[in-house]
């Protein structure tokens, strides 16, 4: 499938359905990777959507002639998008105030140094830049990662046996949001595909219209039209949609 995609000319009408099919095939990998970060207090859906952007990039850039497995190629790209998302949005978790302040400084230094060095900085470089000791940097990095604090055994509900493959257990994403999200998800999945993709890129991944145009391969004007139309439809559908039946536990 990938080979076929890459053999098609840029403007072939076959590209879009082929691309969609590839995205669908590889979405489980995105979900798997996104779950690994779900302890960082970012909504799981956001992470999946950001990861999906990575997947799209990987599909477009993959060179089948290099003989690499696609999933091996795509994993770092997907993770890269997820990491970038955390870097860009900052970490929305509760950490002690001192660590939080350090966090802000650290994030700024991390971004600056990445720019200057052309690669991510080391802990020593970060420590030198913000004038704290390395341990504090490691600590702050740890504080930033609820990820590191999520015991893997939360993957199994209390009293349940650990799933056969511990990494494939299910994590919940915050009960109070589930219903709302379920409703929104229902409505979003009912949108025509092009509108759905573009709305997610625009509002979940916070891409500009120009960026979206580049990712999806249409003009910025077209993106603008699709955003407007998608929003309109979303509003209409949300208004019309009956709330899902209440579950006993809520």
């Amino acid at each position, binding site marked *: 499938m990938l080979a076929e995609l890459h053999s098609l000319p840029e403007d072939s009408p076959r590209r879009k359905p082929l691309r969609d099919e590839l995205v669908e095939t590889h979405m489980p990998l995105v979900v798997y990777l996104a779950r690994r970060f779900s302890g960082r207090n970012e909504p799981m859906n956001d992470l999946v959507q950001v990861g999906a952007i990575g997947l799209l990039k990987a599909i477009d850039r993959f060179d089948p002639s290099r003989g690499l497995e696609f999933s*091996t190629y795509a994993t770092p790209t997907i*993770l890269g998008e997820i990491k970038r998302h955390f870097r860009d949005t900052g970490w929305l978790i509760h950490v002690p105030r001192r660590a939080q302040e350090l966090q802000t400084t650290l994030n700024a230094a991390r971004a600056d140094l990445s720019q200057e060095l*052309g690669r991510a900085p*080391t802990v*020593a470089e970060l420590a030198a830049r913000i004038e704290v000791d390395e341990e504090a940097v490691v600590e702050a990095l740890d504080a930033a990662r609820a990820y590191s604090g999520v015991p893997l055994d939360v993957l199994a509900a209390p009293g349940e046996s650990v799933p056969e*493959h511990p*990494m*494939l257990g299910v994590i919940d994403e915050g009960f109070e949001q589930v219903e709302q999200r379920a409703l929104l998800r229902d409505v979003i999945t009912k949108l025509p595909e092009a509108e759905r993709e573009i709305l997610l890129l625009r509002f979940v991944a916070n891409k500009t219209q120009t960026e979206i145009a580049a990712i999806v391969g249409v003009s910025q004007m077209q993106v603008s039209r699709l955003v407007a139309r998608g929003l309109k439809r979303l509003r209409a559908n949300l208004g019309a949609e009956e709330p899902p039946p209440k579950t006993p536990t809520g």
Partner: protein
Amino acid sequence: MNQPTERPDGDVVEVRVPADVAYVSTLRLTAAALAARCDLTVDDIEDLRLAVDEASALLLPHAGTGATLDARFELARGNLQVHASVLASDTGEPDRHGFAWTVLGALASSVEVSRDDGRLGITLSKRREAATQ
């Protein structure tokens, strides 16, 4: 107290924890701390944490009751090698068809599976990434 040595080359750290998912975070944190000492970049360290997770996830299903998960970290400047192993209760191999294996392969600079005296092991290394610009 001694001054810390400048270069970590050849230093070895061993950590032994119960073969239980609850202790994987200990290995992850140890790996991250040692990786900092090896001068890996923060992105490398993040990859390494995930890789250690995946390696543990691949090994734990094969651990016998009461077994330990042993990790041996070999430090070098710009490179950290992690050898994790469990005393296996079966003769099975880590599942190479799941995502865990894919992710491990994609994130580690090298991965090897070994079986030695009934111990099932995974050796992975993380080298410092090269600048991309």
